[in-house]
């Protein structure tokens, strides 16, 4: 009896600090919002770490391997990067990717700006419906939207066969499909929603009384636009440019479906290295090089726009 009570009390004595530790943890969790927040977020962060950070480091690692027959030589070297820098084909494709994406970005932002302006300033009822209407196609299959352009621009596609049956042209226009123009058109159409949203948000935020003030002080509509509206919506323009330029540089579906050999982009080359050419290290090196170039271009672009804004204000 005495023994059991002793062992019980020992057990209690043993339990007590443990429980208080647990209480302390629970108490900390209850009081510290930051800790609780991190704990709640941790599964999401783990998923994203497995999906983003670890693969990225492994990609960097494999890019420093080299192909060795059918396998890979795992000694770390920068040979792939030197090869990418020296062989003209890689540089040319990289340059062309940036050129095509740059053109697509420019036209998308230019064409979407008036639309975003219209909804922000001239639509007063059912704004939500307008925004949904403008962004709806963006959520549907990218592959199918590109495919639609193949149907339209094809040798016997909608435009050629339509114009021929109307008697406007004698023979199909060959420049439509499998050209850089086709890629730029398709990209601009596919990414319009990505430009519309940031443009709309930045335009919507503009204090309308500034526009009235400009009018009261004698500015006409054109001067008012260039002196108030455009500078104040620049953050939206910059955001839209980034949101289109960066993802499109790595695109390979559009060039593969409507581009043809003249419009092959760096994404197609990466895909080839991971597919038929089976040179994963080179593909990895090209992906990393693409990311570095994107970062460099983005930084230069940001620097220039900031300089331009400083000059204006």
């Amino acid at each position: 009896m005495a023994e059991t009570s002793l062992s019980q009390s020992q057990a209690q004595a043993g339990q007590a600090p443990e429980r208080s530790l647990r209480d302390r943890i629970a108490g900390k969790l209850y009081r510290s919002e930051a800790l609780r927040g991190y704990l709640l977020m941790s599964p999401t962060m783990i998923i994203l770490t497995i999906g983003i950070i670890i693969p990225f480091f492994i990609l960097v690692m494999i890019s420093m391997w080299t192909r060795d027959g059918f396998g890979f030589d795992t000694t770390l070297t920068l040979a792939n990067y030197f090869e990418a820098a020296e062989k003209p084909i890689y540089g040319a494709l990289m340059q062309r990717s940036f050129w095509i994406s740059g053109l697509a970005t420019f036209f998308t932002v230019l064409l979407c700006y008036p639309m975003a302006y219209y909804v922000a300033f001239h639509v007063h009822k059912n704004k939500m419906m307008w925004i949904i209407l403008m962004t709806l196609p963006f959520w549907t299959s990218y592959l199918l939207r590109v495919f639609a352009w193949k149907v339209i621009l094809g040798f016997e596609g909608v435009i050629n066969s339509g114009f021929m049956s109307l008697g406007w042209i004698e023979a199909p226009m060959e420049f439509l499909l499998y050209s850089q123009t086709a890629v730029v058109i398709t990209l601009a159409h596919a990414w319009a929603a990505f430009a519309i949203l940031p443009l709309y948000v930045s335009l919507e935020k503009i204090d309308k009384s500034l526009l009235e003030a400009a009018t009261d002080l004698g500015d006409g509509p054109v001067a008012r636009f260039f002196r108030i509206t455009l500078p104040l919506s620049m953050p939206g323009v910059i955001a839209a440019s980034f949101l289109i330029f960066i993802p499109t540089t790595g695109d390979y579906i559009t060039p593969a479906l409507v581009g043809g050999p003249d419009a092959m982009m760096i994404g197609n080359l990466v895909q080839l290295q991971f597919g038929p050419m089976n040179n994963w290290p080179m593909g990895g090196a090209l992906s990393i090089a693409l990311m570095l170039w994107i970062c460099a271009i983005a930084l230069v672009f940001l620097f220039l726009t900031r300089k331009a804004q400083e000059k204006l204000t």
Partner: protein
Amino acid sequence: MSDMGTYIKRPNRALQFYALIFLIVLYVPVLFIPMFSFNDSIYVRFPLEGFTLQWYVELWAREPVWAALFNSVKVGAVVSIISTGRGGVAARAITRDRVPGRAAIVTFIMMPLVIPGIIFGVALLVLMSQLGVPLSLYTVGLGHLIVCMPFAVATLLPRFEGFDASLEEASADLGENGWWTFWRVTFPVVFPGVVASLLLTFTISFDEFIMAFFLTGTDPTLPMYIWGQLRFPQEFPSVLALSSLILFVSFILVFIAQYIGRMGLDDEKNLA
């Protein structure tokens, strides 16, 4: 509305015309797909030959289409539930708990939006091959999770930001514990966001091709199946029919998602 100058209210005919053209150009290219899917010819060209449902009937009898459809639905359902669940919890933590480094965390979650999909695709492919994990629907699902997470968080964040934290506090004061406070107060308020996020992430996963291209094993998803068929010109009409069905379903799901997702938010703005 009264703070807007009268000159702004004046309708601008040129802009109205531009908006109309813009919407037409946005939608018409996609509409050619269903139009030609009813055309009685294996060539996709004008003039139209006549109305037929033949391509849809053929599609119905195809075993691989059904298999691919089920693969896509499976992946989409799992991905939408996980990304909405985890995204919702993360969105709540970001808005409610004062976590340091909030901006950095949001940037990190949103990263897949701006980094070219091909880089994520090949990086995950390399990881899987190094780990010796065979490519399957699970690897596709992981890829889709990365793509869908930003959209889930972006859909749910405004919901948590828009609602009054004192509601939760009141519930706690009245004696509810954390669990029931969540189910009886928090969840009903963010419910439209949850539905919108589920529909949106499902559609994104259902339509996703770039990740699937690198991560699919032997079981293709529906977009992968279509990609495979694009090589054969004689399959063009049935691809058009299949694409029309996918577009139709996607448009409806996304429309509902966007409508539900924004509805409550605008109401609150009007009330405020």
